[in-house]
């Protein structure tokens, strides 16, 4: 659906050249929700804006739905843009227009007749759950509602692709979840391809099928969300994965425990996919001569199944502990001894 090849964007600034996007190759499939995650300044916004040519690439190609975006004439580019919806961190609604007129805006641009516009706007208002608010002005809406208007507007011309630039970063966690659910819903209902950029792994975990990790203009790692969660290769990816798999205070709590005497072995178990539901701990206690203490744990849902990690301490003699480790590995659960030999 979307394919980027050798894509480069450099900016000339007073302090010299900044390479915001550095030779990126990427393929995004039809109907998937593709997440791009990275810290501030990684070049995510630049990358997503290159997709609909809000930025012109310095070199390289962007192909969307078979069209080579960087070679289109101005007119053809405008037509192509009508098939690519975009939503923004700060919503970018027209304050001078009501909700209805905001949603109607892209239809006016396309030249859709009034009657058809009204009908389509009503459908969209229902789709995003804003019934009864059509006559309000953006200033009368909450952030979550504004983003719903943004989504409805982006979907007005039945686009094939939806680009989301930090669409939930200005929202509180609960509102974020409701917007994310709406995106999943739209993805399923309309078979829309969604590209979203974020700095929150939480967002990736909740709705993305695949993810790419971006650092200094390059994609350093990519793959199925579960796969990346299971075996993050890059240091950066590991940090992001931690955001969702470990409760915030884990590190601190563990440090504290490790200072105690007789803590024994501390293991970190990582569950991926269906494994999370197995009664692993029960089996360990029944089968081996060890005592088990659960220290910390967190299981989260992803689009492809559950994912989580569990910290336990084991007390027992070395031979038994080794048997436990072998047993856990046999169960296809990743295990790492983080304390005690």
């Amino acid at each position, binding site marked *: 659906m979307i394919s980027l090849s050798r894509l480069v964007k450099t900016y000339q600034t007073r302090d010299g050249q900044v390479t915001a996007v550095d030779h990126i190759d990427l393929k995004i499939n039809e109907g998937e929700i593709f997440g791009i995650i990275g810290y501030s300044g990684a070049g995510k916004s630049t990358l997503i804006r290159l997709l609909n040519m809000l930025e012109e690439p310095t070199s390289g190609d962007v192909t969307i739905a078979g069209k080579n975006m960087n070679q289109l004439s101005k007119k053809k580019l405008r037509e192509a843009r009508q098939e690519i919806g975009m939503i923004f961190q700060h919503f970018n609604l*027209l304050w001078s227009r009501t909700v209805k007129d905001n949603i109607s805006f892209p239809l006016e641009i396309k030249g859709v007749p009034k009657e058809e516009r009204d009908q389509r706007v009503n459908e969209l208002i229902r789709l995003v759950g804003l019934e009864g608010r059509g006559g309000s002005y953006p200033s009368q809406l909450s952030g979550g509602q504004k983003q719903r208007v943004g989504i409805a507007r982006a979907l007005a011309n039945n686009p094939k692709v939806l680009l989301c630039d930090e669409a939930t970063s200005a929202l509180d966690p609960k509102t974020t979840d409701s917007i994310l659910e709406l995106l999943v819903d739209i993805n399923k209902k309309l078979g829309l391809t969604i590209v979203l950029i974020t700095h929150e792994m939480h967002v990736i975990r909740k709705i993305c099928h695949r993810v790419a990790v971006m650092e200094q203009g390059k994609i350093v790692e990519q793959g199925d969300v579960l796969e990346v969660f299971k075996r993050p290769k890059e240091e950066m990816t590991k940090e992001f994965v931690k955001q969702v798999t470990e409760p915030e205070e884990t590190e601190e709590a563990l440090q504290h425990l490790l200072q105690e005497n007789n803590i024994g072995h501390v293991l970190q178990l990582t569950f991926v996919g269906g494994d999370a539901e197995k009664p692993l701990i029960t089996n360990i206690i029944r089968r081996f001569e060890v005592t088990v203490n659960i220290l910390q744990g967190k299981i989260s849902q992803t689009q492809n199944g559950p994912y989580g990690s569990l910290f336990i301490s084991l007390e027992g003699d070395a031979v038994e502990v080794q048997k436990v480790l072998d047993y856990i590995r046999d169960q296809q659960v990743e295990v790492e001894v983080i304390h005690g030999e």
Partner: protein
Amino acid sequence: MSNIVLTQTWFFPNVDWSTLWNATQETLYMTAISLALTFIFGIILGLLLFLTDKGNLWENKVIQAVVAAYVNIFRSIPFIILIVLLIPVTAFIVGSFLGPSAALPALVIGASPFYARMVEIGLREIDKGVIEAAKSMGATNTQIIFKVLLPESLPALISGLTVTAIALVSYTAMAGVIGAGGLGHLAYSHGFQRGRDDVTLMATLVVLVIVFILQFAGDRLTNKIDKR
């Protein structure tokens, strides 16, 4: 002569009410026509200033420099001097440099740059993200101007127009002194030069009423359309 007697009143003994009414009409005429033309030219100039600036839709250094120079020069010339400078131009366009219509070219040329700067400031206040959103939907530049830039800056355009209208009332008074008629002419030649203070005072009061009404109407309208 009987007419004058009839229309004179004891508390403004020298004020001739029908002359005052004529002068008021002339002032209103000059203000209204010049305001309408200033609105059009000011918006065009303001849009040019904004659109040709760096990073905008029609980025163009040359046009930007030319328009900015024009605006700055004509905004800096004191109005009274501008009228005098423009006498040949006026005589050519209007065919005379006396009377209310003769004041129009100078009024418009003097006020348009003033309003253009206010238009430009209003346009700059528009969130860049909104323009970007319109681009991302495939809008043409014309659509962006008429569907985004002008509607989104409308409160600023209207409040700027109010300020300009008030400035124009005072410009008409100056123009009046050198032959355009209106309340300025009345206050100066009928009042000041003949030592009739009550005429000057009355003309001033009418100007004040016009200014208050303009300000009130402008503020009401600005508040009404501002949905931010």
